[in-house]
């Protein structure tokens, strides 16, 4: 992210007050794009919830949606409190300190920063990255994590794993940034990081009951496609917005993002067609996401035709990797490893080959005659982020297990997260078996422990619990009591 720089052609002959005014005028356009991009990236976590939610079984869809919405909420608050400061404050190369805690000092530019937008706009953009990274992990741990344990994990992981890694790579004062590692929008910080953490957590949690023998098909493939479509849309903010300006570099990132994603979709479904006999829609959605992941670190460092190659490789390789888990036997439920860990690493390393300074930033890679230097930097970045993430996540996961269980009890897992954890059903087609209202909770009349007996209901004076006898009037057609107020 060494690429925030004003690209305005400000001639030295221009008087300073005019320069300042023109820069400010130009910054409005940049701010417009960054605020738009921030909104787009926020939407990505909602999209991810549907991408994943469609892939799980119908009894777990709300559990999945809830985990993702919780990530948005928890990280948003944490980042105002101290997360942003740890990632982007101070001049220490390992962590950022608490200078920006509670979003104080937002009238300052972050140390080393060269963006033209308000720092609050920069915060808006960055917080959305911090949100989606733990959310990505939920794909590998689907269907079995107690909500309370998950909630605590996210707070710990975001602070102890994401924030430092973001500082190392994204902050101009971070040690990997200073060594010259190229990660345009988070291939290592977001995707390889989340992939490594996903691998760690699916080892900590263990397999789902019944996996891999029992059928665990997607319950709603259109939701998966909706999620993939909205992810594609939002990812323009993720990658192109990472220029932190509305300029030629942002345009490069936009075009590279779209091109690599398209090529990866094609790469994935071609492999499927050859290997499985069918090109699938789930494959198309997966290929698109694999491409988006792989182009993320590279979006501002390669050319559009380079993106075709990079995307096609990512789509094909990630597709081939999805079957490894079944062979080895770890239940990375929705293939976070195959798509985000493999895709993120691939993208980061392929910059070493396809890197092209024609985009205006970065250095040339091997195919452009730049030699292996860039590849070495990239490998170092990958090694550091993936290694730290995997080990730190394992430690957090096992340490938490000392205090309380991550997993739901077996019968709850079989009944599904929606009913067991959240007391809800995702779908109700009105067949009449959907239940009977037994009361309205209030603070003064606390909820009974889940039990079949009807609670004393708030309107029990009107219809005492003894009412359900065969002589009671139908609730639908009350003959005696007029139904209108």
């Amino acid at each position: 992210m060494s690429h925030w720089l004003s690209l305005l052609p400000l001639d030295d002959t221009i008087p300073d007050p005019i320069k300042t005014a023109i820069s400010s005028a130009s910054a409005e356009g940049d701010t417009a794009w960054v605020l738009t991009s921030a909104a787009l990236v926020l939407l990505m976590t909602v999209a991810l919830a549907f991408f994943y939610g469609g892939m799980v079984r119908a009894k777990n869809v709300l559990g999945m949606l809830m985990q993702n919405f919780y990530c948005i909420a928890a990280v948003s608050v944490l980042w105002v409190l101290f997360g942003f400061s740890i990632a982007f404050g101070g001049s220490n190369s390992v962590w950022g300190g608490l200078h920006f805690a509670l979003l104080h000092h937002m009238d300052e530019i972050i140390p080393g920063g060269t963006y033209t937008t308000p720092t609050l706009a920069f915060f808006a953009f960055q917080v959305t990255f911090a949100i989606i990274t733990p959310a990505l992990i939920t794909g590998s741990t689907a269907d079995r994590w107690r909500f309370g344990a998950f909630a605590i994990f996210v707070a710990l992981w975001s602070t102890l794993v994401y924030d430092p890694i973001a500082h190392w790579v994204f902050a101009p004062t971070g040690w990997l940034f200073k060594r010259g590692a190229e990660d345009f929008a988070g291939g290592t910080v977001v995707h390889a990081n989340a992939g490594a953490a996903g691998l760690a957590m699916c080892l900590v949690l263990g397999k789902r009951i019944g996996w891999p023998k029992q059928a665990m098909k997607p319950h709603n493939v259109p939701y998966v496609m909706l999620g993939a479509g909205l992810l594609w849309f939002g990812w323009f903010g993720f990658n192109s917005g990472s220029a932190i300006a509305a300029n030629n570099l942002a345009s490069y990132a936009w075009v590279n993002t779209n091109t690599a994603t398209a090529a990866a979709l094609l790469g994935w479904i071609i492999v499927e067609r050859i290997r499985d006999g069918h090109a699938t829609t789930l494959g198309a959605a997966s290929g698109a996401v694999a491409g988006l992941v792989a182009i993320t670190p590279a979006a501002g460092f390669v050319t559009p035709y380079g993106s075709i190659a990079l995307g096609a490789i990512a789509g094909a390789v990630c597709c081939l990797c999805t079957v490894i888990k079944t062979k080895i036997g770890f239940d990375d439920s929705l293939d976070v490893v195959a798509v985000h860990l493999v895709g993120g690493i691939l993208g980061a390393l392929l910059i070493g080959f396809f890197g092209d300074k024609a985009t205006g930033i970065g250095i040339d890679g091997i195919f452009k005659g730049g030699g292996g230097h860039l590849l070495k930097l990239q490998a170092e970045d990958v090694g550091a982020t993936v290694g730290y993430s995997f080990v730190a996540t394992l430690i957090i996961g096992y340490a938490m297990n000392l205090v309380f269980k991550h997993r739901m009890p077996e019968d709850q897992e079989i009944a599904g997260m929606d009913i067991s954890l959240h007391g809800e059903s995702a779908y109700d087609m009105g067949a009449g078996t959907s239940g009977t209202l037994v009361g309205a909770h209030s603070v003064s009349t606390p909820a009974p422990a889940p039990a079949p007996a009807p609670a004393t209901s708030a309107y029990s004076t009107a219809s005492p619990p003894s009412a359900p006898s065969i002589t009671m009037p139908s609730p639908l057609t009350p003959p005696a009591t007029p139904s209108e107020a």
Partner: protein
Amino acid sequence: MKLVTAVVKPFKLDDVKAALEAFGVHGMTVSEVQGYGRQKGHTEVYRGAEYQVAFNPKVRIEVVVDDADAEDAVAAVSKAAQTGSIGDGKVWVVPVETLVRVRTGERGSDAL
């Protein structure tokens, strides 16, 4: 033993369940079905193409009861499901030769 099958209006399910419980029957199996009969269906129109839908949603309730209880169960269900308007549904009874509770292997009345 007898299998009492009732096809009734969906919103009557709660009443039928309550009636059976009052009568001492604490088990049943319910499914969503579509019924066709005297009750008229409805019309749908999609971009000018008109569809006649002859079916109405119903629930189908199956209850296995002792021979002696069959007649009373039929009466209780019929009464509970009645609204008096067309489409209230049917109740029928077929003979059951064997009944097993899967959990214990118990047979006949013990399986209820």
